């Protein structure tokens, strides 16, 4: 038995001995190398390592979760957790954890990634390629992530998993207000193309030169996968059953109904070999492919055991981290890895069929007036290219997409036949496999 497995098993046994009815222990061992660079130079090289355990206990319907950051003290902390749980009010929402005899598929880690010793060379390759393609100023980040984790539970879960990935973000400026952004995310080192990523960012930056003030009104939009990443992330969060309960979702009362155009299918698939691949959710239930939207129709919400029982639905193995993160409450159902269906057109073909529109490289700051209606805006950044009569004719700046998220999905009329894995900062997140997309007649506004 591995060390992590021993710890996880022991923590569950300690919890059980202390009187817990249910217990889950998830033990992590991970490290990250990060390089941050700007002005075409490395600013800082960072490294962080942590070993910790997320533990959840339930006793007589009372629950408690803890991030035990010092594993040497974890065995002593768990009985205290059970004691604290006993002293807490009953959690009426709690309906149990995953129980069963589970079988897990463990993915293979690319050991070449775990053994990278000189990550800076990728940064220099990206900067060099961007500069060679006209970029005056290049910045970004490179992450090399390595993680092993193990879960044990009183429900019968016992499994280990590991992943390693590398993600590179390159933003290139050709002029002070002309930039392009490209990312590369992979769990397979063969796919690491730092120079090509830098080149692509520089190509966008070159295309974005001499931007003029963008017009307002209704326009067709063609969006890069990177742009879609933020929109898909916001949409995926609304598929969480908890979001539906809280009024944080435009999908409430829409089950089985049309929420997007027929060309849109959205799947959460953490089983793919990606940066977010995982064999089990945070209750220990084996992950699976969940079709959330099929041909434009809403098919399921994402559930943990408790929300599934409350909704009288089947669990979807979507339990998120047992403790709160910056973006989720404890055990909240989450989308791990959205996959958007591909279409049958090339990006050039998507453009050819636009009479009056924009080609958008990236976006950020997607915010909602009201999550239950989906009214929102997002700010395109990096290359915003003007399309007239099927051709790119220049670049613009200072515009905003101000519309409704369900309208956005219903107005998608075509997707590209190619897709890519994307992830950028916490904007295009979580990591996702996405094509380019075309949305008709979206509202563009700007400052006065």
């Amino acid at each position, binding site marked *: 038995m591995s060390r992590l497995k021993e710890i996880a098993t022991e923590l569950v046994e300690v919890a059980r001995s202390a009187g817990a009815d249910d217990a889950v222990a998830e033990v992590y061992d991970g490290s990250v190398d990060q390089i941050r660079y700007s002005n075409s130079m490395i600013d800082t090289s960072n490294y962080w*390592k942590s070993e910790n355990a997320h533990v959840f206990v339930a006793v007589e319907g009372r629950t408690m979760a803890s991030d035990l950051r*010092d594993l040497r003290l974890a065995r002593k902390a768990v009985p205290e957790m059970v004691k*604290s749980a006993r002293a807490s009010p009953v959690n009426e929402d709690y309906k149990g954890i995953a129980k069963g005899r589970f079988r897990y598929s463990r993915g293979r880690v690319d050991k070449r990634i775990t053994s990278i010793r000189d990550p800076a060379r990728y940064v220099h390759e990206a900067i060099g390629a961007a500069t060679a393609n006209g970029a005056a100023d290049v910045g970004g980040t490179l992450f090399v992530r390595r993680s092993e984790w193990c879960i044990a539970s009183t429900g019968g879960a016992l499994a280990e998993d590991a992943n390693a990935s590398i993600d590179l973000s390159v933003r290139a400026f050709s002029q002070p207000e002309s930039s392009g952004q490209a990312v590369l995310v992979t769990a397979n080192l063969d796919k690491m193309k730092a120079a090509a990523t830098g080149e692509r960012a520089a190509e966008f930056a070159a295309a974005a030169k001499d931007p003029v003030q963008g017009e307002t009104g209704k326009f067709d939009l063609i969006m890069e996968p990177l742009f879609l990443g933020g929109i898909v992330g916001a949409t995926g969060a609304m598929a969480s059953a908890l979001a539906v309960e809280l009024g944080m979702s435009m999908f409430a009362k829409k089950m089985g109904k049309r929420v997007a155009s027929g060309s849109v299918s959205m799947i959460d698939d953490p089983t793919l070999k990606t940066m977010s691949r995982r064999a089990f959710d945070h209750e220990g239930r084996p992950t699976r492919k969940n079709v959330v939207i099929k041909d434009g129709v809403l098919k399921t919400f994402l559930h943990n055991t408790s929300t599934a029982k409350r909704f009288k639905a089947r669990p979807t193995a979507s339990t998120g981290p047992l403790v709160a993160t910056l973006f989720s409450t404890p055990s909240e159902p989450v989308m791990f890895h959205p996959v958007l269906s591909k279409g049958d057109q090339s990006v050039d073909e998507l453009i050819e069929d636009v009479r009056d529109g924009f080609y958008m490289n990236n976006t950020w700051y997607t915010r909602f007036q009201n999550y239950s209606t989906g009214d929102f805006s997002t700010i395109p950044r990096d290359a915003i290219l003007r399309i007239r009569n099927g051709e790119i004719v220049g670049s613009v700046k200072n515009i*905003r997409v101000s519309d409704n998220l369900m309208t956005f999905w219903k107005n998608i009329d075509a997707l590209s036949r190619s897709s890519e894995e994307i992830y950028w900062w916490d904007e295009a997140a979580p990591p996702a496999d996405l094509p380019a997309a075309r949305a008709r007649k979206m509202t563009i506004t700007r400052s006065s």
Partner: protein
Amino acid sequence: MIDEDTAERTLDQVASGASPELAEVKLVSLKAREMSIKSGQVHSVSSSTDAGMYVRVVLDTGIGFASVNRISRSAGRDLAKRAVRLAKASKRKERVKLSHEKAAKARWSVRQRMPLGDVSTEDRMSYLKSLDSAVTGTGLKVQGRFFEVADVEISSYLATTDGARISSFLPRVRMNCLNMVTSKGETEQSFREWGSVGGWERTDEWGAGPALSQEMKMLKNLIDKGKAVKPGTYDLICGPEVTGIASHESCGHPMEADRILGREMSQAGKSFVKPEMIGDEIGSELATVIDDPTVPGSYGYYEYDDEGVRAKPRFLYKKGVINEFLHNRETAGRLGVKSNASSRSSVYWKEPIVRMANTFVAPGDMGEDEMIASVKDGVYMNSFTEWNIDDKRYNQKYVSREAYFVRNGKVAGPARNCVLEITTPRFWKSIDAVSKRIELIAAECGKGDPMQDAAVYAGGPMLRLREVNLR
């Protein structure tokens, strides 16, 4: 109890492997607790203890940062070696220049009248239930009813090779909530947050219960009686929450020197402000925006920053002029000025970067009633929902949550989803009156990669903006 000697030994270790311009060792130990309720029932209870350390080394070749969730001499030894190796590996063409600062030696702490660690689960639950009761007591249809109270007690020790030694204890508590009011088949949402440094006694001072009760009634009234604003040019009165978000987004962020110098270019972005713009006009004479970590009890409070520099108020925009950037030692060194103590790290495993603390517009001399009475045809936007701003911090949008028409000097009916979409200079140049009373609102500011959430206040007085476009 933090073993300060570990920091000293770790610094020695750095010195044995390199001759850094600067090396810092920070040890952090914290206890955090969280409880939330949803629709009146417990949703989550959690607690954590954490201890870790980082070593940051600045060499001619670059900066290296290494951290681990352990505090020990052996961990310090490993981190010191690694940080030096990382700093060497950066191979910068330009040397990192740091500003020279007085090496401070200090111990500071924030007093708790009711220590957060002594507050029982029952008391936390009772507090959250009281908030829920304030909402349900309105008799309105409210969905969500999610209330979370979270607190943290952070002990830290910073030691640097240039002699700074700072020991601190910072307790901080916050409450955030989400409520959605339904009426006539329509909805309006409200996200609110309160936060302070200090002990549990601070939760009593917030007055969150009455405020939430009032907010629910306001949202119902907004749905039932609110009318859209006919697009056009109006006078706009911004309440402290709107003043605060504008101060934060279109003054605080663009005045962060790391953005100005491009250090955050691929994430949070650059800035429309350039180094040579100190002294340039950005707003009216009434536009003075201060960022001040020293406001007692404030959510963004600290006495020394994470580079050991003594905190002080920073006058970012002063009488409508770009006056002072937010600096850490790295940005100050590059621009040949002194740091103004803006270096903050949200947790020990993330590098310290330039951050705001409490950002607000300086008060003026007008009474609030007087300000409203001065508007013939306008809108009073007291709070906002949707907001965003571009990555150069020039184009911003605020959509109202609570807003009212103002006609002939009197508050008329509610205005629904009023949109202000405006450039940064236009916003600040349109101010022609500022009220006397200021209010500061707690918020979490996101920046950095990986994302670091910093506790901040944003706020100020009421502002009157003349002739801006609304819709």
